């Protein structure tokens, strides 16, 4: 009873926040509703007993992807009046895409409902006495290891592509090259200094100040480091 109640609560919040993602006027609010939707999806996974997937959904989508979304949306200066301008023109295309997606959803659910033999193919029941993460690993790293590796490769290629497209060396920027700095003659030197002695007493000469920037000469009776 409690599980069913929880399911309907989470599902209702999920759908409501998904609607809010599309309809809210402020894009930052949209992203925040998207995060709420992810959370409720994770809760639904938990109810279905897929605890590993639920946690991964929160870590990957909420913890990383949505943070980047939020970053971009907050930084961009978007003119919403301009965005809304083409609504009439794009509405039919949007409707067609939405209709196709809806049809596909109906076909998937319908196959599971009306053709039980297809449903039997769908599930790969987790072996008893094995935790969720273990069961997933036993399938993913054995039967589907090549597909898994291919996914990783595709992601790697996408990542490299993004880096190649955005990385460029601008002429004017100053970069710190630590090795070069350290290797520069006379830039870094260590020496043991007696406690309480000033620069003058040890014999370290300061570089003379350039003529125009010379500070005002003030009478000094106690030079640097007066403890002597």
């Amino acid at each position, binding site marked *: 009873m409690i599980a069913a109640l929880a399911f309907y609560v989470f599902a209702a919040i999920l759908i409501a926040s998904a609607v809010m993602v599309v309809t809210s006027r402020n894009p930052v609010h949209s992203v925040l509703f998207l995060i709420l939707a992810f959370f409720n999806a994770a809760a639904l996974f938990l109810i279905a007993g897929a*605890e590993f997937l639920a*946690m*991964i959904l929160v*870590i990957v989508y*909420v*913890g990383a992807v949505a*943070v980047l979304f939020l970053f971009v949306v*907050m930084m961009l200066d978007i003119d919403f009046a301009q965005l809304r301008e083409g609504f009439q023109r794009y509405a039919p295309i949007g409707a067609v895409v939405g209709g196709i997606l809806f049809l596909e959803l109906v076909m998937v659910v319908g196959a599971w409902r009306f053709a039980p033999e297809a449903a039997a193919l769908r599930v790969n029941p987790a072996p008893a006495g094995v935790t969720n*993460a273990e069961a997933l690993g036993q399938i993913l790293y054995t039967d589907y290891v090549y597909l898994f590796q291919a996914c990783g490769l595709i992601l790697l290629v996408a990542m490299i592509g993004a880096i190649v497209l955005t990385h460029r060396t601008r002429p004017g920027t100053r970069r710190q090259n630590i090795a070069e700095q350290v290797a520069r003659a006379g830039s870094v030197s260590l020496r043991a200094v007696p406690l309480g002695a000033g620069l003058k007493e040890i014999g370290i000469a300061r570089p003379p100040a350039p003529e125009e920037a010379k500070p005002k000469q003030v009478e000094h009776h106690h030079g640097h480091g007066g403890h002597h």
Partner: protein
Amino acid sequence: MDFFFTHPIGILILTVVKALALLVPLLIGVAYLTYAERKVLAAMQMRKGPNVVGPFGLLQPFADAIKMLMKETIVPAGANRVLFLLAPMLTFTLAMLAWAVIPVNDGWAIADINVGVLYLFAISSLGVYGVIIAGWASNSKYAFLGALRSAAQMVSYEVSMGFVIVTVLLCVGSLNLTEVVRAQQNVWFAIPLFPMFIIFFISTLAETNRAPFDLPEGESELVAGFFVEYSSMSFALFFLGEYANMILMSSLTTILFLGGWLPPIDIAPFNWVPGPIWFVAKICLCLFTFIWVRATFPRYRYDQLMRLGWKVFLPFSLVWLVITAAVLKLTGWLPA
């Protein structure tokens, strides 16, 4: 008595009591962590620290808390009101939420779930939202810049932290935090995985925005960073959340590397001391190191921080992960 273990309402009451038994000491711990920080910093800088309110200044945290409650809550005129007030609540709630899975002793976790490590990782990766939302909703450039810095920093260090956790999990063979501690019965993971222990500790410093990685609140550039517009209770919630997160990260370090509730050696004088006391003692050790680091090191520059995270820690932890996996496989120590 059966009522508390079988009837749903009984279980609910029992869970609430358990949560209070954990959270009340935690909040008192947070209060005294601020006191300890000020005292330790004072000792390291040859000052006295708080010593006026109560004996040795022991009532100082409560005086501060009461003062904070009495202040006026100010919401800036241009701020997004709902999000502005939501952000500190989110930070504080997340800091409390994570404690649900921490095992203080063998079987003493409120929720001893199978994916405990992932749960902790998920909750700690959400902490960044409190910061970003606060920075954005304040509608102030200092707060926003602080929030951007903080978000970039937390996301960067999470990656290497993830690899460190995976390395530990390889040695354990389970995602359950109790199992993680039990696997350290013979040797704490801090010894065989020493470099990872160091990387993890430094990453927790960056993750909690503590010195020397406290750039989000670099006061010389950003006034106070993302919470510059906050006052009164909403500020207090950020403050509590930050310190509770420090304790949380210390307890995570303790569980993953310092053997949780286990005594250092399982012989007579050590195993007389109960587990929770060992656990708290190890957390205190980590927290002392947090404060010690703050008193010792100057703040990192922002590009150095990013370089350390992405170009040093990430490749190193990745290579160490591969080495660990190879060694475990070749020697046959891989847990089933």
